[in-house]
């Protein structure tokens, strides 16, 4: 097995045993990026010099016997995480040359453990998209089929795992942006409960929905990485002060007697037959492991997409107001006067999907429409939360597909934004409810494209969905299959 194929925990053992050094692992990863990223376009910025300096520091730590689970591990970060001294674009022209003066909390926690940051990963512009096609830095290609999208918005973070150009990555999930690309690239992607991981230093798209999470090769790595970044942060008022369990220790709990809910609104006509088959197989496997299946109802599911596109865009329209050309980022060169500078800077700096959402959100908050759109959407959001809480009175975990179809072709849905929005129907409700969900590899379509399975947990029930996922992974080989690249 090559270094680039290893999981975090496998590489950790080799580093600890001094079979491999962090510098070797980092070099291997940088060479791999050099070799294949031209085809995949998962990276916006690669940081070889800094990475090797960090790797050397990690090797010194290891030599001194001071090794943490992430020490010396080459990781990639979605370009939405601000990184001190490393350009952070958020996939946008408006931040094309923005070099932040500080590290966010999640990044700082990785650095504390001695993780090696190899680069910043491609994404939809400001995390707005489901296919990574809205990036100013070009679309990411799916390593399983270069004509397909890797999903989005954390497309680079998922594609880098599949292309084996990072041992693990961090992404963010506002409406499915970790889980859906994880599903499309056959890796593990976890969206924690809102408040579990600090958002400090994460460029905001929709503040009440954004959440940071890991994308990894297996469930153990997801547990490890979540444990490393989770916890209360005094710099983020919305981070919650509850203890972080040892997620790795709880993995082998098993599913015997576990009550798994199947929301009937998620198993609809029109579900792709390959996806349907993968779900049926997963259900059968869980039954064979002693889990109990129950149909449950999440009656407000059909309103989730509309609700999401009001709340997320409303927040985004305000969050993105700071990109005005005054203090950082792109500034239009030839503007006369203040208003023209604002207008031109933003017209030039933002792409069309971002502009569409700013306009939608501005409209939803406008006087005379606020009650009909924003306020109503908040009410529906409460009902959707209630749906989940009701379901969790009956079951421990929900099992659903991640996306109605396997990965689609690049360009296929660009002409029809609404069609694109609807592809997030199974992931969006989890963000609106603020709870946690994980995507794990669950098979392939007839055309050989990955299909993911979603497990949804109670608020702060990450340990349960991780152990449920782990039980599945132990009995299947899907996560071991390598993309043909």
């Amino acid at each position, binding site marked *: 097995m090559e270094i680039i194929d290893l999981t975090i925990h496998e590489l950790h053992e080799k580093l600890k045993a001094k079979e491999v050094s962090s510098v070797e692992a980092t070099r291997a990863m940088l060479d791999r990026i050099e070799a294949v990223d031209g085809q995949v376009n998962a990276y916006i910025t690669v940081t070889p010099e800094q990475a090797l300096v960090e790797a050397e520091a990690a090797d010194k730590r290891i030599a001194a016997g001071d090794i943490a689970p992430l020490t010396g591990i080459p990781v990639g970060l979605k370009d939405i995480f601000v990184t001190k001294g490393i350009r*952070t674009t958020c996939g946008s022209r408006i931040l094309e040359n923005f070099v*932040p003066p500080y590290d966010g909390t999640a990044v700082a926690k990785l650095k504390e453990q001695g993780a090696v940051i190899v680069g910043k990963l491609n994404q939809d512009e400001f995390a707005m998209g489901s296919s990574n096609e809205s990036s100013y830095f070009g679309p990411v290609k799916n390593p399983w089929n270069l004509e397909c999208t890797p999903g989005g918005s954390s497309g680079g973070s998922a594609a880098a795992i599949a292309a084996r150009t990072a041992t693990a990555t961090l992404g963010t999930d506002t409406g499915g942006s970790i889980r859906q690309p994880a599903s499309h690239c056959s890796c593990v992607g976890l969206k924690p409960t809102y408040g579990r991981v600090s*958002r400090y230093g994460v*460029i905001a798209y929709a503040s009440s929905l954004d959440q940071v999470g890991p994308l990894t090769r297996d469930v153990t790595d997801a547990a490890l990485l979540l444990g490393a970044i989770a916890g209360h942060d005094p710099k983020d008022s*919305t981070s919650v002060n509850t203890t972080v369990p040892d997620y790795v220790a709880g993995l082998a709990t098993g599913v015997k007697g576990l009550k798994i809910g199947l929301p009937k609104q998620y198993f609809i006509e029109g579900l792709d037959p390959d996806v349907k088959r993968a779900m049926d197989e997963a259900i059968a496997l869980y039954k064979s492991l002693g889990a109990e299946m129950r149909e449950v109802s999440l009656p407000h599911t059909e309103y989730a997409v509309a609700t999401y596109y009001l709340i997320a865009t409303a927040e985004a329209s305000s969050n993105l107001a700071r990109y005005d050309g005054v*203090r*950082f980022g792109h500034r239009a060169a030839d503007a006369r006067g203040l208003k023209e500078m604002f207008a031109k800077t933003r017209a030039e700096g933002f792409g069309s999907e971002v502009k569409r959402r700013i306009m939608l959100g501005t409209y939803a908050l*406008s006087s005379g429409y606020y009650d009909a759109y924003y306020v109503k959407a908040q009410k529906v959001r409460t009902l959707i939360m209630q749906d989940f809480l009701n379901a969790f009175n009956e079951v421990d975990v929900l099992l659903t597909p991640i996306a109605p179809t396997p990965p689609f072709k690049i360009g296929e849905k660009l002409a029809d934004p609404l069609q694109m929005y609807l592809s997030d129907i199974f992931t969006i409700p989890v963000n609106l409810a603020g709870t946690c969900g994980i995507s794990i590899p669950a098979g392939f379509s007839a055309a050989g494209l990955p299909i993911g399975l979603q497990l949804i947990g109670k608020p702060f029930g990450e340990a349960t969905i991780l152990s449920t996922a782990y039980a599945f992974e132990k009995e299947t080989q899907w996560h071991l299959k390598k993309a043909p690249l």
Partner: protein
Amino acid sequence: MKYQVVIGLEVHTQLTTNTKIFCGCSTRFGAEPNSQTCPVCLGFPGALPVLNKQVVENAIRAGLATNCSITQRNVFARKNYFYPDLPKGYQISQFDLPICQHGHLDIEVDGETKRIGITRIHMEEDAGKLVHADIPGVDDSCVDLNRACTPLLEIVSEPDMRSPDEAIAYLKKLHQIVMYLGICDGNLEEGSFRCDANVSLMPVGSTVFGTRAELKNINSFKFIKQAIEYEIERQAEILDDGGKVIQETRLFDPNTGTTRSMRGKEEAHDYRYFPDPDLVPVLIPDQWIEDVRATLPELPEAKRARYVAELGLPEYDAEVLVSSRELAQYYEETVALFPQAKTVSNWVMGEVSRALNEDNNRSITDCPVTPALLADMLKLMEKGTISGKIAKTVFDEMYKTGKAPEKIVEEKGLVQVSDTGAIEAMVDEVLKNNPAQVEQYRGGKETVFGFFVGQVMRASKGKANPAVVNDLLLKKLKG
């Protein structure tokens, strides 16, 4: 036509917390531009606000002192608009759930008490400042964000005031209260206490308010009066000519004493307020309110009433002494050491205030004659060691040197002469030298008595005990 003016005031008070409302940067005034900033107050991508608890506490104080009810579930809202001094493109403020509501203040104008309603008090962050570049040939504006994110309370009154004097009385009262509470330094010129005035006219006898203009940039009590008076004239002229006042924001120009249009209604913003998702609701339990209430100082109104009722001071004295918390404290500390309320009041309002005024309006907290020194001096007077006249000399010397009064009296030989023998010799001398006046007195013109006292005091260089002088003079003149 005769018009009635209707005035409502919006006051922004900058709170004297050490750090900003949503980050740890210093709030100190006058630092190098942009030196007191961080990713949060610069609105950098990824930065998040964290509420300064002291701001909430100060807001509760202000609310309790102005008879407001305290909102127990507080929500911060974003007020969205673009301006270069507003880093995030929105101001974090409060909208439909302000921390204090439904309060009032009682003001007194021409001996009449009037209640002015307070609609709301809310917490918010300040914006930065635009500074015109002072570089020849450069027409750019510069942005200083030191002030961005400093905490403000916006205190909004009901449109209850009906004259510029009422507006001034309300503002002075409010100013006095925030100073007493110690939540604002009250500096109008530096912008720590800023006032916008909503002014409209309606025909006398009407109950329907006219269209209002909002006056901004008024940074002294004098200017507020000027601005409102000008605005009354301006609007009256428009109405008399059959015109309509337009709703607009007008800037006061202190050089001309006039107001000019800043932006009209057609440019009015839609601020698109919505709850800030980066901040969780602030819950204020009863216990917190009660804890804050327990730390409130005695407020000027209560203090004034107590001075009259318990210390027996005249209304006027009480009013002057409570005008600032520091003056009242000085007074009370002195009275505690020398419990003759009126005597102390006379000295504090008289010599102490005069000396401070003459000394470049020095602050009472910085007065070289401490309450302890003043009380010691008053005790010397009471014992008869020094006369009232000498006391003034002693006071001036204490003010200059900070020395103890006993020491000054001793060093300068200012001890009062009460020795009857010595004074009697002086009285005899005076009577002998002024036979004409003695005749007049004995002939019934008793007003000449003062003349004799003056002469004896002069002969003693002010040191003779006036009581002894009086006694002896009377005895000798009548006897």
